[in-house]
């Protein structure tokens, strides 16, 4: 900066010129980098959808996978994805919500509850593969049921439980105190207050959390490979909880790296597109109504 002090202009004004220049450079730099990254990410998303979606046929979506020849579908894998998602939500949502309600509403503020909170946070940060190893130890070794849909779904539920707990707790805590006090003042019991005031008011946050959890469960692969295996029972609409449960995300990996079908590239392109599409749909279908509702409330 000192070298710039030259000629008739004072130290102050030249410094300012340099600072202005730096400031402008900085703005250009930030705009440039951000634009590059955002365009890059959008291009990736577009690429996935564009490569797969136009070539989708019902035969592919509902069809059975093949081990050797071309033309295998993803039917059972896609079905397993939804089936396991459903079972895992059935376990994780009620348990996670009630644990979250406990932490937000009933829990006294002492060391013991601080410890419970650390447990929840710790569990939320455990890598997914650990849940897979735990699933093996629990279902394959202890209960001896092998790689099954139910084992995978329960492991998935464990993975999502802490997230659900934290999201519910935060959503319920953010409900204004006045609403709760008004409800108590009317003589409502704690349960009535929770059911009719707190949960309905916090529903936006809770549904966002469920979307998050559902998307994670739908796309999770490490846990499923370890606990539900990389094969399906080979038939469509197999509701048996004890059959092996390869999901779409696992199928994408399996086709790409292990299988020997000649059209692996085309299958995985399409499978990736379906996967991303379904997750986008989760978000759009569930979050947009809430988003609109929030906007309306603000005005």
């Amino acid at each position: 900066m000192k070298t710039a002090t030259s000629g008739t202009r004072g130290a102050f004004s030249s410094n300012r010129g340099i600072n202005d220049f730096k400031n402008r450079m900085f703005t250009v730099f930030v705009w440039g980098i951000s634009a590059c990254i955002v365009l890059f990410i959008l291009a990736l998303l577009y690429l996935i959808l564009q490569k797969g979606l136009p070539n989708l046929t019902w035969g592919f979506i509902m069809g059975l996978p093949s081990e050797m020849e071309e033309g295998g579908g993803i039917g059972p894998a896609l079905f397993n994805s939804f089936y396991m998602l459903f079972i895992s939500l059935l376990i994780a949502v009620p348990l996670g919500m009630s644990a979250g309600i406990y932490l937000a509403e009933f829990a006294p503020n002492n060391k013991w509850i601080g410890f419970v909170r650390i447990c929840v946070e710790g569990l939320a940060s455990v890598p997914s593969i650990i849940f897979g190893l735990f699933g093996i130890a629990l279902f394959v070794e202890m209960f001896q049921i092998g790689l099954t849909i139910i084992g995978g779904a329960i492991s998935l539920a464990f993975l999502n439980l802490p997230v659900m707990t934290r999201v519910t707790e935060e959503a319920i805590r953010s409900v204004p105190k006045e609403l709760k006090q008004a409800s108590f003042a009317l003589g409502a019991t704690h349960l009535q207050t929770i059911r009719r005031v707190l949960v309905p008011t916090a529903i936006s946050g809770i549904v966002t959390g469920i979307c998050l959890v559902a998307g994670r469960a739908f796309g999770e692969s490490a846990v499923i490979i370890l606990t539900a295996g990389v094969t399906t029972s080979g038939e469509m609409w197999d509701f048996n909880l004890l059959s092996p449960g390869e999901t779409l995300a696992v199928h994408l990996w399996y086709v790409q790296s292990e299988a020997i079908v000649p059209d692996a590239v085309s299958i995985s392109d399409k499978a990736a597109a379906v996967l991303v599409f379904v997750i986008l749909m989760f978000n759009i279908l569930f979050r947009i109504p809430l988003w609109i509702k929030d906007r309306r409330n603000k005005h």
Partner: protein
Amino acid sequence: MQLDTSAPNPVISTNSSELGGSIKTGSGKLFDRKNRLLFYNRAFKIACIASAAFVCLILFSILFFMFRTGVLTFRDVSPMTFFFSSDWSPENESYGAFIFIFGTFALTILTLLISVPLSIVIAVFLAEVAPGWMRNFLRPILDLLVGIPSVVYGFLGLTILIPLLRDITGTNMGDGILAAAIVLTIMVLPTISRISDDAISVVPKKYRDASYALGATRFQTIFKVTIPAARSGIMYGVILGMARAIGETMAVVMVIGNTPQLADALFKPTSVLTSNIVMQIANVPFDSTWNNALYMMGFLLLVISLLMIVLVRLLQRKGAHQ
């Protein structure tokens, strides 16, 4: 707010009519109802306590199972060999996990080196530079990206990034620690930048005003006032991103090459803790030393990720004191 206050209204009306009804029908029913409500209340509370306890129980049973199986490794392998030998050939009974531990740390550091500066630039852009409409458009998109499955990122890395890296380097080696770090960067970028963005956004406006009043430019204000003030929030984002990078499995498996060699070059197929576990666990019998060693590696991952949560807690406490 105005609409919010109207929310409990239906509650008021239904409750008062129900209560009124039970009072009219006689005191006996009223007390029945009261007891019933109290019973429901208590049952609900107990169910909630049980769920919270269940969450803790899962964490402890995971710790217990991983430790119990993992510690059996040391019956056959000395801890020194396990942690510091880089010879992983289970067929010949040598179980040195140093390659994987080193790989995990090297990969995480490389990922953070790339992703943290980029994320902070994006966070600054979102919180300070971008016009309002762009902010409202980009924030949901970044949130959405967090939900894209890791296997899709791995697939993109395998089909787009690795051929690209091969072209650039001119060799036929594309997979390795650099490819994995780039894929992980794309994955953790939304996490770190959104959390940092939130942290920068909540810095009080008066700090900025004071800085501008002293004649500082926007560049000076952001670097000397805003970012230092948001430091603990940004650290929180970085640690969460780090935890994600350490535990990520499928995206890494698809691009890292899965060969037990020390990651001493950017383009060299190697392996990390997670990828090695997922590739080998399916093929080993449960009671073998090999399997125990894999569980020990899992336990190590678990300890690392729990330590990070402790770190986050300490940071938050420090932030609260300030």
